[in-house]
């Protein structure tokens, strides 16, 4: 992971240097980096394992190209960047790029001053992603989207800096309930994390309704969190199946049995060829006309 990040950052630096070189040499600043980066990335993709260089080249080339286009500062530019992330994410099967595209879509709505709609979109996308995860359990794109899009939606809404609204609290509490239900029922981790995130956002939003000083609210929240954690630990203490808090260790006897089975199944002598006795039975297949 750290190696991938180092590869990504260094490659981005190289792409920036390439753009600067194109500017100094008078070459097209959009097309030249785009073609060079994409061709190099495709060569690397065909040659071997992904490292992070390909991802940086793909997105770096596309962003360099977008920056070279004539622009007038309209918010629709965000959608162009989102499209670039969708394209790169689709080609590289990169869940992070897909998530960035979703966040950029929410940011576009916020930039158009549709902040409540942006928040609603973030929550709905998060729930849809969690629901999709019930079908494709190990997909990191939907897991990331389920966790990040409610946060993006709330940040987009909160940039208004308005006082707390009961509707927002209810929305995030409902989203948390749905996410937690999906997580517990289908035993998937990402909706559980998304549920916790939604609970935290609802707790942040509800603070204006509590007529207590900030310190008292923080102490109350901390105590509530500790009590919840203790209750969950207590409930799951001796559980060995379903949702557990400690990784299960195989029993000693179970390990011995497993070892014995492994040893027994290992052939010590070459197996003798089976002797065929013709005329031993008249079995017609699938038990249709069996005669022993």
């Amino acid at each position, binding site marked *: 992971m750290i190696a991938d990040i180092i590869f990504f950052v260094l490659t981005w630096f190289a792409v920036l240097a*390439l753009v600067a070189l194109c500017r100094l040499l008078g070459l097209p600043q959009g097309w030249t980096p785009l073609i060079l980066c994409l061709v190099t990335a495709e060569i690397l993709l065909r040659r071997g394992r992904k490292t992070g260089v390909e991802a940086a080249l793909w997105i770096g080339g596309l962003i360099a190209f977008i920056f070279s286009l004539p622009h007038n500062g309209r918010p629709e530019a965000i959608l162009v960047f989102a499209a670039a992330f969708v394209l790169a994410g689709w080609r590289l099967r990169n869940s992070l790029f897909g998530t960035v595209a979703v966040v950029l879509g929410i940011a576009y709505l916020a930039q158009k001053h549709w902040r409540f709609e942006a928040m609603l979109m973030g929550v709905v996308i998060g729930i849809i992603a969690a629901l999709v995860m019930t079908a494709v359990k190990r997909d990191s794109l939907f897991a990331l989207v389920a966790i990040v899009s409610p946060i993006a939606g709330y940040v987009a809404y909160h940039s208004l800096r308005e006082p707390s609204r009961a509707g927002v609290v209810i929305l995030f509490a409902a989203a948390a309930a749905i996410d937690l239900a999906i997580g517990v029922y289908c035993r998937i981790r990402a909706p559980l994390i998304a549920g916790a995130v939604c609970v935290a956002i609802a707790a942040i939003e509800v603070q204006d309704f509590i007529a207590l000083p900030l310190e008292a609210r923080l102490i109350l929240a901390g105590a509530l969190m500790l009590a919840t954690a203790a209750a969950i630990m207590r409930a799951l203490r001796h559980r060995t199946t379903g949702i557990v808090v400690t990784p299960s260790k195989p029993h000693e006897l179970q390990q011995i049995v497993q070892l014995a089975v492994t040893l027994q199944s290992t052939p010590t002598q070459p197996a003798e060829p089976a002797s065929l006795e013709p005329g031993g039975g008249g079995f017609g297949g699938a038990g249709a006309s069996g005669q022993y």
Partner: protein
Amino acid sequence: MNRHTVGAGAAIAIVLAAAAIFYGFRARRELFVFYGYVYGLIAIDALMLWNVHDELAIVLLLLVSTIAVIVAMVITHRRFHP
């Protein structure tokens, strides 16, 4: 940066980077090799940038040295994860 100590600072950084690379290969710890490459790259680039004044040469130098380090890192990565 002090003009008189740039060379010494870069030399120390390069020596330490080389030590990190050596230790990384010896202990089979890939990240130490990467740290060595990156800090070595920064030291060499800083040294060169201090002495080169042409804009085109600076950009070319940054591009070539970064690509060289990326290639070295990819080769190292494949060596550690065959």
